[in-house]
């Protein structure tokens, strides 16, 4: 299709590209390198030296990446870990030559196959990308062009480098799809991205990245958006493919469980600087830097702590036979699309108890939370708070009862109105309930103090706070109405581990002090293990198992529960922290 | 110069005629096009003397009540059927139902008879001075009986492909684009018409019409088809001739309806003040580019029995102010309704408004389109309203109706809209219509003019002239007092 596009390369690159992409020839080319590998300790495929990337003026810090050096070796996976904003993605993008226009590399070099990548011109970059260096992105939803068929997007990989005929490309795409384990590959190569599940899309992305057998694979949080079960499969796939092709992999993640599962080498980044690096076992077992230690300590363990049994049998919440089916109207001449988000859901929460609700994405956890909160209407069933049947109320009466059950939301950025000051955000509820505004603000100040924010916060806007602080504000808002029950829907999932640990501790503390009950929704079984008294496991709208936490972890009954537990990454932990 | 045969004329028509059946629709453009297809019994010279057309000759009885017309022999309709007295009788009957003006004009007719195929006799109830002036094609077109008799006139297919006796035949009409007429080869006047065909181009925008002329796409701009402001420029173009002739029969006279019934305008002095306040020479010189004439009274100077021996109202703001003060005008709001006929009239409305405001009147312009304006005038819901009306050659036809009290009737935009009622005037016009001989009529009408001008029932503005602009190679385009409205039968092209 694009024969007209110039493919100007230097002789040596051209020579490699021209005969064909097939393996035998390429191997012959890289033979001398391989030979050396045997003699010395494997030379790096890529060597990043003292990389420094400047951010535009007004950014939070002058350099996104500040003097980072690291090597990627064939056949090895290097995990780059660190909190959000530590510069992980920047490193990856620099390696691919895909840095945004607003940032630029001020110093350092990236050695690859005998040249400094940072000095390449656009055409050479283009030649290397995809063919020698490939990348997988975090969001499988947005990383694929929604208007193109999967197979065509795979075939583009060959087209970009002028390889094969269109027919061969299609055949190749099919076999790639098969190789990464996409089900029904004939159908899937003809499908559009939105017709695939997240895991399938990520597989398609991997297939694409591997199409030309690159020497280096960069994976920027490739599993963060996936379910644990899917994550486990994808990790396995990457590991296998990487082994069989002897690729050098740079794997970016913030999840230490994942690191534990696949890393050969670990590099810990903080504020754009490498604070620690070394073989995975060493970093896990003998972390040297305090930051690494803190990070490791913050990873919740799979072992539920012992919990005091609850004697008080008073029920705070009673949920009986909740049904909810979403009907997406198909119009007059089409059948409706129905999703059962809750089917005959029953559970109680005792006073002072934390009930966990776990399950994969789409299993109906949030729907249950909303039903309990009466943010949506149930088709059938009852939600009782104390003696009040919430499902029977509406309008003013409902509003009057709302203060008894409050919610903490998942996304600390989306759950605060960006245009209202924190003071208002916290005090609005009580004022709407009829409280005197001065008293409400005084109380807001106290609450903020209780969640660890100073009084000055009242007058500030949400964007002036960090993620963890915002989640604290969300908690203060929920507490302002002095609720009996708190529903936390993925309340810590968006936070970095260290922050997550703090917030969890805060929640535990407040709960105990105020005698609250809690419905805690999460997809992270480690978190659930640490905070819940009992856990309910949901699958496709049905609660398949509900047990005290320790029992559930020790003796899962339902196959789905077992599958979930097995998929949690990092269980062969080299450093069982705590 | 000897007329040359052949050639095509492109003329502009505006707005697009709603139909071409002159007996059923009678607005200006319809007559302009259909005047070539249909004919009347008579035409009128620029001096408004009757000239034969379908009637070869005519005679009037002693008592002035019987008019006998001898029809031309050998006249055929465009479909080949002969034209006879039966067609005339039929036309009279039909027009009484479809043609409002013909209906009025024929009100004096007692009976119409056809003693033979080529003679028609009109018998009147009483003598009617202007009777010989109602036979022009627009006022009384001849309709083919054999195509209309016994049909539903409204939906008759010939409405859209009219058949007449005229020098040109209807050929095609592309709605929104043009109307095409071709020479009638069997025309009764041998050798005529000279032209092969006429295209009437439909161009709705005045500026675009000027451009069409300028770029040579059309040859004739009939009166009123370009804005007056453009006339001087166009007349200076190469090979361009301009004439104001051809409007003698209609003699359009512009005035302001003044609502005599209510408010300040019920006071004669206020009405006189308005006459003094308006700078009519400015209007003539600037808005009408010097064309036309400042009106002295209810009759245009081209109309029979006109006299300028009447009170005069020169532009005199001081006097206007004095009169207003005398009448005790205290700034009551007065609504003025301009005529929605394009830029010229809009500008004129603005100028008059400004004149009146300059003498201290509180004027508000009410904007409407033609239909909305008509409704307001018909409902007498106005204070001052622009208009211009045709006079049809005789005070009994075009003048009296605007002042006699019997013509006061709600819901119409003609006749006595201003609500002026003066028994003396009523009597004068009643007498004038039937009086004989001419000298007696003259006396009556001169008296009426004097009284009216003193009373100012309406404010007369200008005798309008709509110049026709054409290429000089177009000869003999206008030969009668009806101008382009009764056909191009004498026109020829000097190639």
């Amino acid at each position: 299709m694009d024969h007209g596009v110039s493919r100007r390369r230097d002789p040596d690159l051209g020579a490699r590209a021209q005969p064909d992409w097939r393996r035998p020839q390429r191997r012959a080319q890289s033979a001398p390198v391989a030979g050396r590998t045997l003699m010395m300790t494997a030379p790096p495929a890529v060597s990043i030296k003292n990389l420094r990337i400047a951010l535009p003026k007004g950014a939070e810090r002058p350099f996104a990446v500040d003097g980072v050096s690291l090597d990627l070796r064939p056949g090895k996976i290097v995990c780059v870990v660190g909190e959000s904003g530590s510069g992980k993605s920047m490193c990856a993008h620099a390696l691919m030559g895909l840095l945004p226009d607003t940032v630029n590399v001020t110093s350092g070099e990236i050695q690859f196959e005998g040249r400094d990548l940072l000095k390449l011109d656009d055409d050479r970059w283009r030649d290397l990308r995809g063919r020698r260096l490939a990348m997988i992105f975090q969001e499988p939803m947005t990383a694929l062009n929604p208007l193109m068929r999967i197979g065509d997007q795979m075939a583009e990989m060959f087209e970009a480098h002028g390889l094969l005929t269109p027919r061969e490309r299609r055949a190749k795409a099919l076999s790639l799809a098969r190789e990464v384990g996409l089900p029904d590959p004939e159908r899937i190569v003809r499908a559009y991205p939105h017709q695939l599940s997240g895991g399938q899309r990520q597989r398609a992305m991997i297939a694409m990245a591997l199409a030309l057998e690159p020497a280096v694979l960069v994976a920027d949080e490739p599993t963060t958006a996936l379910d644990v079960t899917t994550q486990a499969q994808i990790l396995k796939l990457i590991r296998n493919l990487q082994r069989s092709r002897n690729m050098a992999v740079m794997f970016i993640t913030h999840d230490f469980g994942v690191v534990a599962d696949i890393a050969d080498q670990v590099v810990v980044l903080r504020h754009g600087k490498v604070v620690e690096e070394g073989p995975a076992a060493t970093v896990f077992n003998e972390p040297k830097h305090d930051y690494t230690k803190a990070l490791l300590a913050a990873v919740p363990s799979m072992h539920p702590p012992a919990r005091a049994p609850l004697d008080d049998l008073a029920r705070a919440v009673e949920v009986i036979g909740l049904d909810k089916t979403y009907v997406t109207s198909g119009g007059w001449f089409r059948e409706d699309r129905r999703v059962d988000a809750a089917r005959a859901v029953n559970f109680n929460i005792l006073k002072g108890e934390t009930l966990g609700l776990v399950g994969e994405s789409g299993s109906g956890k949030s729907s249950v939370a909303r039903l309990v909160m009466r943010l949506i209407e149930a088709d059938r069933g009852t939600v009782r708070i104390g003696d009040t049947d919430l499902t029977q109320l509406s309008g003013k009466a409902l509003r009057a009862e709302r203060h008894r059950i409050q919610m903490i939301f998942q996304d600390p950025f989306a759950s605060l109105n960006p245009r209202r000051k924190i003071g208002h955000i916290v005090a609005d509820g009580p004022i709407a309930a009829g409280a005197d505004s001065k008293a409400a603000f005084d109380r807001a100040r106290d609450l903020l103090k209780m969640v660890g924010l100073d009084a000055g916060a009242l007058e500030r806007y949400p964007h002036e706070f960090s993620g963890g602080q915002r989640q604290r504000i969300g908690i203060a808002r929920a507490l302002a109405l002095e609720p009996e029950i708190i529903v936390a829907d993925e309340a810590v999932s968006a936070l970095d581990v260290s922050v997550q640990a703090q917030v969890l501790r805060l929640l535990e503390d407040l709960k105990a002090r105020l005698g609250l009950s809690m419905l805690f929704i999460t997809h992270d079984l480690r978190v659930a293990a640490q905070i819940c008294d009992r856990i309910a496991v949901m699958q496709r709208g049905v609660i398949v198992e509900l047990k005290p936490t320790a029992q559930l972890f020790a003796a899962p009954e339902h196959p789905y529960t077992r599958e979930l537990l097995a998929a949690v990454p990092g269980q062969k932990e080299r450093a069982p922290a705590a | 110069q000897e007329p040359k045969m052949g050639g095509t004329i492109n003329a502009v028509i505006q707005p697009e005629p709603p139909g071409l059946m002159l007996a059923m629709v009678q607005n200006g453009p319809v007559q302009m096009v259909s005047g070539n297809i249909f004919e009347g019994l008579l035409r009128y010279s620029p001096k408004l003397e009757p000239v034969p057309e379908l009637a070869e000759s005519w005679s009037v009885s002693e008592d002035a009540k019987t008019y006998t017309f001898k029809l031309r022999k050998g006249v055929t309709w465009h479909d080949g059927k002969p034209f006879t007295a039966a067609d005339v009788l039929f036309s009279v009957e039909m027009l009484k139902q479809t043609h409002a003006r013909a209906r009025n004009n024929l009100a004096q007719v007692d009976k119409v008879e056809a003693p033979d195929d080529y003679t028609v006799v009109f018998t009147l109830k009483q003598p009617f001075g202007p009777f010989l002036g109602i036979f022009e094609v627009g006022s009384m077109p001849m309709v083919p009986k054999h195509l209309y008799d016994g049909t539903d006139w409204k939906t008759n297919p010939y409405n859209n492909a009219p058949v007449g006796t005229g020098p040109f035949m209807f050929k095609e009409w592309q709605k929104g684009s043009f109307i095409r007429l071709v020479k009638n080869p069997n025309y009764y006047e041998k050798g005529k018409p000279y032209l092969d065909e006429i295209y009437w181009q439909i161009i709705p925008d005045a500026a675009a019409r000027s451009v069409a002329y300028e770029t040579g796409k059309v040859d004739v701009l009939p009166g009123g088809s370009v804005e007056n402001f453009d006339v001087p420029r166009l007349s200076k173009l190469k090979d361009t001739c301009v004439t104001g002739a051809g409007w003698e029969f209609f003699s359009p006279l512009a005035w302001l309806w003044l609502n005599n019934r209510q408010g300040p305008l019920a006071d004669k002095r206020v009405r006189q003040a308005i006459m003094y306040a308006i700078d009519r020479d400015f209007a003539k010189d600037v808005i009408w580019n010097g064309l036309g004439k400042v009106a002295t009274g209810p009759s245009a100077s081209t109309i029979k029995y006109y006299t300028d021996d009447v009170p005069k109202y020169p532009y005199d703001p001081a006097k206007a102010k004095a009169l207003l003060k005398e009448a005790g005008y205290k700034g009551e709001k007065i609504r003025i309704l301009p005529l929605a006929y394009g830029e010229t009239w809009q500008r004129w409305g603005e100028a008059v408004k400004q004149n009146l405001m300059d003498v201290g009147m509180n004027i508000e312009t009410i904007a409407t389109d033609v239909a909305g304006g008509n409704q307001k005038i018909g409902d007498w819901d106005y204070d001052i309203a622009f208009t211009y009306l045709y006079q049809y050659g005789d005070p009994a036809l075009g003048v009296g109706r605007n002042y006699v009290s019997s013509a006061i009737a709600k819901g119409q935009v003609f006749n006595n809209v201003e609500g002026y009622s003066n028994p003396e005037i009523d009597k004068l016009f009643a007498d004038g219509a039937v009086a004989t001989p001419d000298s007696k009529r003259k006396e009556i009408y001169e008296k009426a003019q004097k009284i009216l001008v003193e009373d100012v029932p309406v404010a007369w503005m200008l005798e309008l002239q709509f110049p026709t602009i054409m290429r000089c190679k177009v000869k003999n385009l206008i030969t009668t007092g009806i101008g382009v409205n009764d056909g191009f039968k004498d026109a020829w092209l000097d190639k």
Partner: protein
Amino acid sequence: MLSFVAQRVVKGVIVLLAIVVLNFFLIRLAPGDPAVVMAGEAGASDQVFVQQLREKFGLDKPLPEQLFIYVKGIATLDLGFSFRQQAPVSKLILERLPATLLLTLTAFAISLALGVLFGTFAARFAGTFLDTAITIFALIFYAMPIFWVALMGILLFSVAVDWLPSFGYETVGANLTGLAHLIDVAKHLIMPAMTLGLFFMATYTRMTRASMLEVKRLDFVKTARAKGLPDAVIQRRHVLRNALLPVVTLAGVHAGTLIGGAVITETVFAWPGIGRLMYDALLQRDYNLLLGVFVTCSVMVLIFNLITDLVYRLVDPRIEFAA
């Protein structure tokens, strides 16, 4: 897909019915009586005569009855009779419809094609002189009143240099046939179509540019770059196609504006379309004709919208054929 169209048609019919009823009353609210207008043109009028006219056109009946008669007619695709032009309304409209369709569709095609082209250029060379130039021109075209553009066009192309005809849709009396006729019509078409399309072209230029810049930031563009695809291919295949979606939506919405805008263009260029027919009908209070034009225009808008929706659904696989 078929059921989608069927559903849309049913919906459209309901909307149309509402339009008919509303406009029926709206139009009759206008001051001015068609019978008076007609009688007036004869240069005289009297009560009896006007009443006679009213009866003839059924205007003497009570409004609900008139509406009933009208709607009944519509059901049988009869738009009524124009008492003023003495012809069936549908005939009058059909005579004019081809010209309007030719004009609006050409304007639409030109504006969309050129707009997308310029927008693409501007986005590709964002920040350069070319971008600035295109943006400024787009802004100027956007800001010029349509009649002004028309006037300037005529002065420039018809008067100053005699390249293009200033009125009509063919050379009257030339009796051209075949290719010569086509060329003749095309020559007449250029100016009105450009005039009508210029504003929309400017809109699409700006929209395409903005949309391209927006899409450029999306993840899948990064994926495409990571594949090593040449920039031109990325721009065309990945950026442009996605960026066009909002432009297509907007274009569909514009159909109504385009047809409405044709009133002025058709007036200035003497283009024999229904825009002018509507305006004349309005001035003459030709109720049936005016209503008929409204219904026709609305049908055209609905069809335009349906087509854009279909196109949208063809381009974007994510949207299924549901309402």
